[in-house]
């Protein structure tokens, strides 16, 4: 390949604990190609996203065509090819949350941090995303800030919580 | 039977459809027997009177085109979209993938042929381009379409002749449907 000089093409270090984790998972799944999604889950959890070199590592290990892996990764919303930011703010836009003003929260976040869903701030501190439904409909509107569910939130509350997070 | 009135109009297109219209050659005499051509880019005539049939070449690319096509619609009994640009926006629509500003900058600022002072011309007399180019049916009711880039002369003549004889043409039936 031409762009071997790109950092994404550097093979991940075998000593990286995250690569060890992925290798263990691949072994556990017996190098079965149909375990691809399970292995991608492991990688996504370990890295927070799927770096290209890790993807290539998995492709090689499972002896899969690159296009097959890439097509699968891009199909599922869970997998991301870009870093999602140190702190993540996930706004639920399920029907119940939508009816109760999820859009207002998104508008306020965009106003305060100039970030639209799917974007990460320039300093990589904050990433904003939306979920189709986190299943906490009784608590609408809900926002997940770094794994922590904030229920029945107002836009001011969530902006304050985000500010507290990224200030650290 | 009184003679019908025909007009042809050239909006956002390359005039290729009008060239094709000229290619009906001597058959223009058959048309002339049945109708008067009252306005056409190739004949003189400043105003568009009320007409029976108007052939419109090109798509709606500017505010002026929009004003014109709305006026045409009022004046014409039957509005025929002539050629791919009028029907599908075709090549004129190829700028729709970009922002209008990008299009201007590419043409007037960043083009190789421009000198350093290249700037987007801005004069009140100039046309104001619309953000997106649209085919005729997006803005007015179109009574008949002749796709093709350009449609061939035979097709144009066939459609005109049918209309002038108060028949509704059918391109599929006579295998004259063609794009590109």
């Amino acid at each position, binding site marked *: 390949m031409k762009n071997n000089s790109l950092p994404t093409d550097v093979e991940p270090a075998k000593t990286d604990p995250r690569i060890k984790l992925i290798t263990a998972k691949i072994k556990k799944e017996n190098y079965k190609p149909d375990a691809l999604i399970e292995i991608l889950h492991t990688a996504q959890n370990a890295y927070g996203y799927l770096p290209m070199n890790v993807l290539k590592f998995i492709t090689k290990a499972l002896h899969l065509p*690159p*296009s097959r892996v890439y*097509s699968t990764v891009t199909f599922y919303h869970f997998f991301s090819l870009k870093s999602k930011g140190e702190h993540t703010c996930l706004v639920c836009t399920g029907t119940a949350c939508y009816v109760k003003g999820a859009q207002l929260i998104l508008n306020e976040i965009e106003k305060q941090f100039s970030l639209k869903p799917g974007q990460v701030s320039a300093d990589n501190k904050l990433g904003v995303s939306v979920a189709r439904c986190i299943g906490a409909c009784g608590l609408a509107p809900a926002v997940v800030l770094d794994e922590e569910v904030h229920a029945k939130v107002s836009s001011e509350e969530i902006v304050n919580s985000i500010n507290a997070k990224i200030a650290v | 039977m009184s003679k019908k009135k025909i007009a042809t109009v050239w909006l956002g297109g390359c005039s290729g459809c009008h060239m094709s219209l000229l290619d009906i050659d001597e058959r223009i005499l058959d048309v002339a027997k049945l109708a008067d051509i009252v306005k056409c880019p190739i004949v003189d005539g400043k105003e568009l009177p009320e007409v029976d049939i108007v052939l419109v070449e090109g798509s709606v690319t500017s505010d002026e085109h929009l004003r014109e096509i709305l006026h045409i619609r009022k004046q014409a009994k039957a509005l025929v979209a002539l050629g791919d640009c009028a029907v599908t926006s*075709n090549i004129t629509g190829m700028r*729709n993938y970009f922002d209008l500003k990008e299009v201007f900058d590419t043409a007037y600022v960043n083009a190789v042929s421009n000198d350093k002072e290249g700037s987007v011309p801005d004069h009140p007399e100039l046309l104001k381009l619309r953000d997106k180019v649209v085919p005729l049916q997006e803005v007015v009711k179109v009574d008949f*379409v002749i796709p093709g880039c350009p449609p061939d002369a035979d097709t144009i003549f066939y459609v005109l002749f049918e209309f002038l004889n108060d028949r509704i043409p059918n391109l*599929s039936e006579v295998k004259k*449907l063609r794009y590109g």
Partner: protein
Amino acid sequence: MPKISVTIDDKKLDVDVGKTILEVCKENGIEILTMCHLKGLTDVGACRLCLVEIEGVNKLLSACTTKIAANMIIRTKTEKIKRYQRITSELFFAERNHVCSVCVANGKCDLQKLGYKTEMNHIRYPYLFPECNVDTSHPWYVLDHNRCIMCTRCVRACGEVEGAHNWNVMNRGYQVRIISDFDTPWGESVTCTSCGKCVHACPTGAIWPKAIVQGQLEKKPEIIGELVEKRKMNL
């Protein structure tokens, strides 16, 4: 081979079991419009042009993936089906940037022919005008996403016949795109064998050889089916 009797468009036919409705129709000279079907490749039922009405079945079924069964009463050219075929054809045109007049496949394009067959004189839906790239990195061939209709014939020809798996589909919904390897430029693909099967399989001007000028494109999609047949014979 055992025979079963079926009725297609009011014609009584005795046909072999185990065939798809599409195969039976073709053998009996009944035209069915298709786009994603190509002899020699697995049928996926994606273009929805070959939908037929079957008596007693409350939904339309794709002829390419439905096996014929005894006593089926099939209709292939009802007003409803014709109407739907025209809409499908319009959606194909509106989805990407099909500018026939400047397309290499002009006059040789299956999509154009589809438009004529469905009597599509104009497109009633607003064009989407998506931003599409043209990949010219391969020394011999070009991939033009503007003309792609996502029939995936190239994907299947490459995977099933050539076995290279260079092509696949990325993303989902209206954002799907044909990709080579990791969405890398085709010329940099590590899997492509430059065999050219995808070029022949492509029904439009989305994949074409560089050494041609407009209107001179000659594709032979039937070679895919012939190749598969020959391989079967050799086995």
